[in-house]
């Protein structure tokens, strides 16, 4: 009896705080989101306790369809560019001479340690009409008039790729590091050329890293409203900004909740696909 009491005390004393914390500040708020998505907004920007499905129905308005399409396309572009640019980069670092490697890995970590908004704000400075890049381009004579680079869709894509590239590279780098070099030698020994060693051994074995990297790029990109705030024009609306607006300017919380649930659903689908190839542990 005393033993089991002590054990329960032990369990409660160790995992209890976390359970309580996650219960109160994570699960309950998420339930609130689901709950509020079925309520009606009132004229004062608050919520009335009238249950309705109209928030879900309004998802099918064409304007939101465009927002979803634009957002998913942006996130997809971001992920693909990050993968294409990041994989070779991760591969080069992982195979760099021993002497250099710790330094190169550190260089990769540093941007992680710097606030992504501050980093992106640097791009804002660079891309301005009267900014450095335009000065440079005019000075070397590529153009005689400053180019409109900031506040375009391209600038948003650049900002997204920039902010998320480290998140793509790191899991890929880890999975390449884990690769047993003798496997590559074995493949070579068995007659595979360089290209085949890569496509038949390296690529399949680093797939978990590629998937983890893609997910860690794609999912946050859906919510990074501040990038489009800083880099984008008013022309294109993305889902992150749309949700943000429902809670700030438009004050339509039920609609914001529904849009958030859409994000959760997208995430769940992606995670479902992901857990077929990788484990959750690789995500952290």
């Amino acid at each position, binding site marked *: 009896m005393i033993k089991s009491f002590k054990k329960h005390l032990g369990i409660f004393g160790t995992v209890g705080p976390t359970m309580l914390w996650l219960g109160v500040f994570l699960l309950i708020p998420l339930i609130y989101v689901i709950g509020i998505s079925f309520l009606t907004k009132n004229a004062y920007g608050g919520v009335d306790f009238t249950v309705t499905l109209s928030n879900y129905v309004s998802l099918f308005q064409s304007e939101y369809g465009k927002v979803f399409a634009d957002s998913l396309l942006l996130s997809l572009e971001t992920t693909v560019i990050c993968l294409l640019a990041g994989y070779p980069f991760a591969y080069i670092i992982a195979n760099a001479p021993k002497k250099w490697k710790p330094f190169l890995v550190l260089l990769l970590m540093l941007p992680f340690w*710097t606030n992504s908004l501050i*980093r992106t704000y640097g791009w804002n*400075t660079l891309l*301005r009409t009267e900014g450095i890049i335009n000065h440079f381009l005019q000075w070397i004579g590529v153009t005689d008039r400053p180019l409109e680079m900031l506040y375009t869709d391209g600038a948003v894509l650049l900002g997204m790729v920039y902010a998320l590239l480290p998140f793509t590279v790191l899991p890929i780098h880890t999975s390449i590091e884990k690769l*047993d070099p003798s496997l590559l030698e074995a493949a070579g020994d068995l007659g595979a050329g360089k290209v085949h060693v890569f496509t038949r051994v390296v690529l399949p074995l680093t797939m978990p890293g590629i998937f983890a990297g893609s997910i860690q790029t794609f999912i946050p990109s*859906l919510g990074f409203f501040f990038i489009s705030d800083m880099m984008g024009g008013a022309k294109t609306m993305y889902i992150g900004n749309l*949700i943000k607006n429902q809670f700030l300017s438009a004050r339509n919380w039920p609609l914001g909740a529904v849009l958030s649930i859409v994000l959760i659903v997208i995430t769940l689908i992606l995670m479902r696909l992901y857990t077929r190839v990788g484990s959750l542990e690789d995500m*952290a």
Partner: protein
Amino acid sequence: MKKQRRVHEFKPGSVFYACLVYLFLYLPIFVVIAFSFNTSKMNITFEGFTLEWYGRMFENRQLMQSFFNTVIVAGVSTVLSVIIGTLCALGLYKFEFKLKNVLSTSLYIPIVIPELVFAIALLIFFTSLNISMNMATLIISHVTFSMPFVVITVRARLAGFDRSVEEAARDLGANEFRTFMRVTLPMISPGVLSGGMLALTMSLDDVVVSFFTAGPESTTLPLKILGMVRKGVSPDVNALSTLMIVGTIVILLTSTMIQGRLERKM
């Protein structure tokens, strides 16, 4: 137990490509740092070197306030995350209980769902309880997303841990508490430290969650900058950002070195 990799030489193509990516990653950071020393008020061209902005920033009360808020939130939420998260990892390691799987899975929710969803969930939650946003709500939010990283990091450390070492301590006369203090804690300390570093990084890097859970008095430096970007940023912001970048890097670099030393010793 080092893996024997073949000796690799730099290939010119690889070097060029790697430099290009590093340039892409670092150019904006350099720009922020460079302009913090610029005599010109405009962030356009570099006109001359000055430390003026590093003095000026202290006069900007609001800016300094947001900087301190950032530091306080990061500090407090890291300490809380480390304590709660380490305890949780130990409990998960030591005990078997009914909700263990539920808990292990729940820990991944804040990691995988978009921050934005999680941020508005907290906004709705606090507002419905008539709690207005302040430092406390901000810290609570940060702990919620950074604590799972601590649990996972410490847990990974514990997983590679030989239980007989704890038994040896018991065998040599240490009671449960002494065993924890003299053996378990020192052995997981590298994991605790790297979990703490992750928590700190997450907190300092956060924009989305803070955006919704910070009150007017508890705004952070990144949020302050976000508010200023459209109107144009004054050079003292560059100075303060530089300070934050350098400060973060110094702290994390030191921790990494301490962690490396702890691990090498074992």
